[in-house]
C-alpha cells in the first residue's frame, strides 16, 4: 500500500490552464474522492496521476518517489474506467490475465490469482465469456477484477458507476466500500455524484475550474463548507441562500439583519468585517423548521412528497424560494401560508467574496 503526493501540479492544454496548481497528500489506505461539476478537471487530474496525461509542472510522488516521467504501467497503479474499457476480443480470463502476462508472471501463479479474484467477485461462471456477452454490472466487476489481480499500490476509479442504473449503482457502491475495507488499498475515486462521494470517501477533494475548493472528510464538508461553492455543491437538495446585512459581531457570534427586518445571531466569528456589509446566509433544507405562524412567512408553491420526507418550496415575500425538508407526514398544502424558523446554530454566513465565516463550535462529527 502506498501514499500519493501532489505538489503544485499543473496542466496546460495548448494555451489554457486546466489544472491550476493542486497540492494534496493521500495517506496509506485512504479512500479519496475527487468531486466537482463536469469540466472541473477531476478526470484530468486522475489521468495525470495515472500517467495518461503529461504533467506540465509540479511533482507527483508515489510512495515518496517522483514518477512524473514514469510510464503508466510502471507506476504500480490500476485504473477502472467509466466505459470499463475491457478488451472486447479477449474473454474475461484473458482480460484479467493481460497485465499479469505482460509483467512476466508464470502461468500457474497467474491462474491462481485470477481464480481467487474471480471467486471474490463472483465472476467464476463467466471466465470464458467475452465482454460483449456480459451485463453492465458484470462488465464493471470484470474491470474491477482486472485492477485487483495486478495487486496495485493505488486504485484509480474514473466515474466507474455512472453507466449503471440507479439500483445497481447503489449496490456496487456498497460492494466497492466493502472491497476497499477488505483490501485496504489506497484509492482515488473520481465522481460527479455527491452521494458516492459522501458515502465512500475518507477524504473528499472538491474541485472547480482546476482549483481545490476544499479538502476534508464528508461531514466536515457538510457541516463546515469553506465557501459558497462547496456549500452549494455538497448536500441534496442544495443549501438555501439569501442575502442579509452584517450588523456586528463578537467572540460568540455575528448578528445579521434579514430582508424582512428580523435579526439573526449566528455563532460564527467575523473578524474585521464592517457593519453594513452585505453577506449571504445559508441554511440547509433539512435544518429549516416549519411553523404555522411567526416571522419569515411565505406561501407554499410546490410540495414534493418522497414518502419518508417532504420537500416544501416556500416563496418568500422578496420573491426568493426557500426549500424546507420536513417530515413525510406533514399536512401542509400548496398555497397555504407558512412561517419558517431558522435555527441560528445551523446557519452559515458567507462574506461577499464567498468565503465562509469560521464557526465558533466545530460539529462533533466533523472535528
Amino acid at each position, binding site marked *: 500500500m502506498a501514499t500519493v503526493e501532489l505538489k503544485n501540479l499543473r496542466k496546460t492544454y495548448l494555451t489554457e490552464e486546466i489544472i491550476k496548481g493542486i497540492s494534496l497528500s493521500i495517506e496509506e489506505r485512504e479512500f479519496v474522492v475527487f468531486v466537482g461539476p463536469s469540466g472541473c478537471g477531476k478526470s484530468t487530474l486522475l489521468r495525470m496521476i495515472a500517467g495518461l496525461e503529461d504533467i506540465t509542472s509540479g511533482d507527483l510522488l508515489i510512495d515518496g518517489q517522483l514518477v512524473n516521467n514514469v510510464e503508466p*504501467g510502471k507506476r504500480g497503479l490500476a*485504473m477502472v474506467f467509466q466505459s470499463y474499457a475491457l478488451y472486447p476480443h479477449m474473454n474475461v480470463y484473458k482480460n484479467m490475465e493481460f497485465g499479469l502476462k505482460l509483467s512476466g508472471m508464470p502461468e500457474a501463479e497467474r491462474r491462481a490469482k485470477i481464480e481467487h479474484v474471480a471467486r471474490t467477485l463472483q465472476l467464476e461462471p463467466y471466465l470464458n465469456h467475452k465482454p460483449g456477452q456480459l451485463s453492465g454490472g458484470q462488465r464493471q466487476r470484470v474491470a474491477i477484477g482486472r485492477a485487483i489481480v495486478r495487486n496495485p499500490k493505488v486504485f484509480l476509479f474514473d466515474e466507474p458507476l455512472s453507466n449503471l442504473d440507479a439500483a445497481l449503482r447503489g449496490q456496487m457502491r456498497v460492494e466497492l466500500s466493502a472491497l476497499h475495507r477488505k483490501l485496504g488499498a489506497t484509492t482515488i475515486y473520481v465522481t460527479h455524484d455527491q452521494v458516492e462521494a459522501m458515502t465512500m470517501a475518507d477524504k473528499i477533494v472538491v474541485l472547480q475550474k482546476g482549483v481545490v475548493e476544499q479538502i476534508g472528510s464528508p461531514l466536515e464538508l457538510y457541516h463546515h463548507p469553506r465557501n459558497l461553492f462547496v456549500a452549494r455543491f455538497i448536500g441534496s437538495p442544495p443549501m438555501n441562500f439569501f442575502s442579509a446585512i452584517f450588523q456586528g459581531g463578537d467572540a460568540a457570534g455575528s448578528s445579521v439583519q434579514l430582508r424582512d427586518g428580523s435579526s439573526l445571531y449566528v455563532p460564527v466569528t467575523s473578524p474585521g468585517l464592517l457593519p453594513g456589509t452585505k453577506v449571504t446566509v445559508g441554511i440547509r433544507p433539512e435544518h429549516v423548521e416549519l411553523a404555522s405562524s411567526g416571522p419569515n412567512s411565505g406561501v407554499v408553491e410546490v410540495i414534493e412528497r418522497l414518502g419518508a420526507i417532504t420537500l416544501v418550496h416556500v416563496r418568500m415575500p422578496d420573491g426568493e424560494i426557500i426549500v424546507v425538508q420536513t417530515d413525510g407526514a406533514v399536512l401542509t398544502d400548496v398555497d397555504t401560508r407558512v412561517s419558517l424558523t431558522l435555527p441560528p446554530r445551523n446557519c452559515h454566513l458567507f462574506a461577499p467574496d464567498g468565503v465562509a465565516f469560521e464557526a465558533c463550535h466545530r460539529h462533533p462529527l466533523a472535528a
Partner: protein
Amino acid sequence: MALKTKTSTRIGVTILGWGIALWLFFPIFWMILTSFKSEVQAISTPPKLFFMPTLSSYTEVFERANYWHFALNTVIVSVGATAVAIALAVPAAYSMAFMPSKRTRGTLLWMLSTRMLPPVGVLVPIYILARNTHLLDTCTGLAIVDMLTNLPIIVWMLYTFFREVPAPILEAGRMDGATRWQETTMVLLPLALPGIASTALLSLILCWNEAFWSLNLTSSHAAPLTAFIASFSSPEGLFFGKLSAASTLAVAPILVFGWISQKQLVRGLTFGAVK
C-alpha cells in the same frame, strides 16, 4: 425509415438496383463473352449474343505470351506494395487517430490532395528518378510507386477505422503495462482487423488494376498483367477476341478473390456506419 415500405417503392428500388448492377457489369460480361468468340464473330455487326463458343483466342494468347510471368509480377507488386503500405500506414494512422495535433486534419487533407494530381503530371520526374536509381522495369520500382500512390488512401482509411476503437481500451492496455508496440499489436490491431483487411483488399485491387505506371515504368522483365493486356491492343490492329481473352485472364484472379472476400470488404467499408 418507415417500418412498412410501400410494395411499389420496394419493387422500384429493386429494379433500379438490378439496373445499375447490370449496367456496371455489362462491359465485363461482354468482355468475357467476346473472349469465347472467334475474331470474326467478335467484330460482326450486329453483335452476336448466341454463338458456338471457342477457346481459340485463349490458346493463341497463351502461345504468344507467357501469362504466368506477367501474373507473377502482378502478384509480387500488389502484395509487396500493399504489405509495405499497411506497415507504414499503421503507425501514421495511429498517431493521427490517438495523438491528434493541430496539423492532423491538414495533413490528412494534404495527403488526399496528392491523389487529385493527374499521375502524368509527375511522369517525367518519377521516370528519371526510377532510371537513375536503376529501378526501371523492376518489380521493386513499380511496387514503390504503387505503394506511394495508394498510401494516402490507406492511411486515411486506417485512420477512420482506428478512430472507431475507443481510446480508453488502449489506455487500459497502457495501464496494464503494455508498451506502444504491445498496445498496437495486442490490442489495437486485433480490434481493427476487419478494417485493416478491407483496406488491404482495396489496396490489392488498386495495385492489380494499376496501368499507367505499369506501362510507363516496365517493359518486359517486370511487366504486370496490365502490360500483358496492352500488348494485345496495338501491333497488328485490334483483335477483340484475343484482347478480351487477355483482359479476362488478367482480371479473373482479382475478380474471384474480391468475390470470395466481398463479405469482409462490405463489412469493412461500412464499419463506421453500423455499430
